[in-house]
């Protein structure tokens, strides 16, 4: 049976978004602090510990270089965790999606609501780090405000990719493969911890197609007060992957739940 057709969306998707927002609101402060702790430990540990051994990287102290990368990788992680673990709980374990689909809400709307929610939550995560590093003086340009839409776009991209994996997952264990085989290598190859130029040339080419590297190339210049080179290209790549992955996620979720 063919489950592919363009997603049909309605405003009811926002009711799904709102449901998740209401749950989050109950635990908002611990959730934000929890999302901040891990990246901050890495930022300070590596930024000061390792950074002390290094000369300026990309023309700035290492911790400033790393701070911009951390914004991107944290956004990716937050979007992925929400779309994978939380999404899977609601779809498979709690049967929340089934309950919603008994109301006049289509599966496409449910997936869209989850997608926008995971991207929004990732944006909160990325923005929280942005605020902290701004307070620490690692950001010194109002251009940094443009990082917010870029963070949201990064969230959309990784949320949609995560929803594909959720649609395919038999259990939570499955997500380990995604993190080990995709997310972790992406984090190491996309210029979060060091400039891509440090990699062998062949690997550099591979790194350039990774969505996180586009996010990094978009956001890092903005935080240091520069307009990103080839900004349109990076935006197009992230938006293109986000849209394509969303269509695939909808198709696969239909196959899983509507057959």
């Amino acid at each position, binding site marked *: *049976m063919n489950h592919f057709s363009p997603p049909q969306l*309605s*405003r*009811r998707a926002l*009711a*799904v978004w*709102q*449901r998740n927002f*209401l*749950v989050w609101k*109950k635990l908002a402060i611990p959730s934000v602090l929890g999302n901040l702790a891990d990246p901050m430990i890495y930022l300070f540990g590596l930024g000061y510990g390792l950074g002390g051994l290094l000369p300026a990287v990309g023309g700035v102290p290492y911790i400033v270089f790393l701070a911009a990368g951390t914004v991107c990788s944290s956004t990716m992680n937050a979007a992925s965790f929400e779309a994978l673990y939380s999404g899977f709980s609601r779809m498979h374990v*709690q*049967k*929340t999606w*089934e*309950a*919603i*689909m*008994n*109301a*006049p*809400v*289509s599966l496409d709307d449910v997936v869209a609501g989850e997608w926008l929610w995971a991207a929004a939550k990732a944006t909160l995560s990325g923005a929280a780090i942005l605020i902290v590093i701004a307070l620490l003086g690692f950001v010194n340009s109002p251009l940094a405000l443009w990082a917010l839409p870029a963070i949201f776009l990064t969230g959309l991209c990784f949320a949609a990719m995560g929803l594909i994996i959720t649609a395919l997952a038999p259990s939570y264990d499955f997500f380990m493969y995604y993190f080990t085989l995709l997310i972790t290598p992406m984090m190491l190859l996309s210029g979060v911890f060091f400039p891509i130029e440090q990699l062998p040339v062949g690997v550099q080419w591979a790194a350039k197609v990774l969505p996180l590297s586009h996010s990094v190339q978009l956001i890092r210049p903005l935080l240091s007060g520069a307009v990103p080179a080839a900004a349109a290209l990076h935006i197009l790549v992230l938006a293109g992957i986000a849209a394509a992955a969303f269509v695939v996620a909808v198709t696969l979720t239909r196959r899983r739940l*509507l*057959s």
Partner: protein
Amino acid sequence: MEGLSPLSVDGLRKSYAGREVVAGVSFALRPGECFGLLGPNGAGKTTTLRCCLGLTPPGAGDIRLAGEPVPQRAREARERVGVVPQFDNLDPDFSCAENLMVYGRYFGLATADIRARIPQLLDFASLAGKDDTSIRVLSGGMKRRLTLARALINDPDLLMLDEPTTGLDPQARHLIWERLKRLLGQGKTILLTTHFMDEAERLCNRLAIMDEGRIIAQGSPRELIAGQIEPQVVEVYGEDAPGWARSEAARFAQRCEVSGETVFCYVTDAAPLLAHLEQRPQLRTLHRPANLEDVFLKLTGRELRD
């Protein structure tokens, strides 16, 4: 029959991996009635409901729900329908009132309108004052009642309930039945699936017995009992009962079924059989009128369906 049928199904078929789970099912609900779909596990009841709600496309057949063609306009049709699923899927992250509020938003209802309805719905579910109680601490019966209240958030014309009392204790079941009767009194139409015959006999105006994807009998509980089976049942128990059934029962009973050490004798006139059994004190007997369960077992057999 007046008014448009709230749900009509004609020639519905659905296959999974080459196996036909629903194999040509047709029925139509009359406004204001309670219609039961009965059948053993795996008979195709839940799949039929899923098709009717537009949650899975049928292989063949026509479905009209609340006047709308399904699955084409299933989403619009569901605006007028309330659903109580087989397994509770209340939102565990929310309180009772929040569950109703969030669910109402899926219908596009305004927050103020939902808020105004919540007290009467909780009252209907005998959960008055439990607005802020977490779902996690509710008993099974309370969860079922809240699920029923949730299905009423949009004031639907038709309620679809998939095994609404499975797993509940007798007190909880009776309360659900009483509430469903109240809804019928308000003019709502109910479609329910069940494998409890007493539930079907008590609630349903009409019912259809399904087995292996087909409807094998349809009618009011009374019609089915009168039309499908002998009116009297004598149950005979004891170690010797199966032997007795082989050698003697046929002389007194139109039909006998043996299940372990129990023999079910179906008769039009029980007097000769009972007189005979008085001579056999080692056999215990129970004489009763035939009921829907007898019809069900006759039509679907006694072997287990797992």
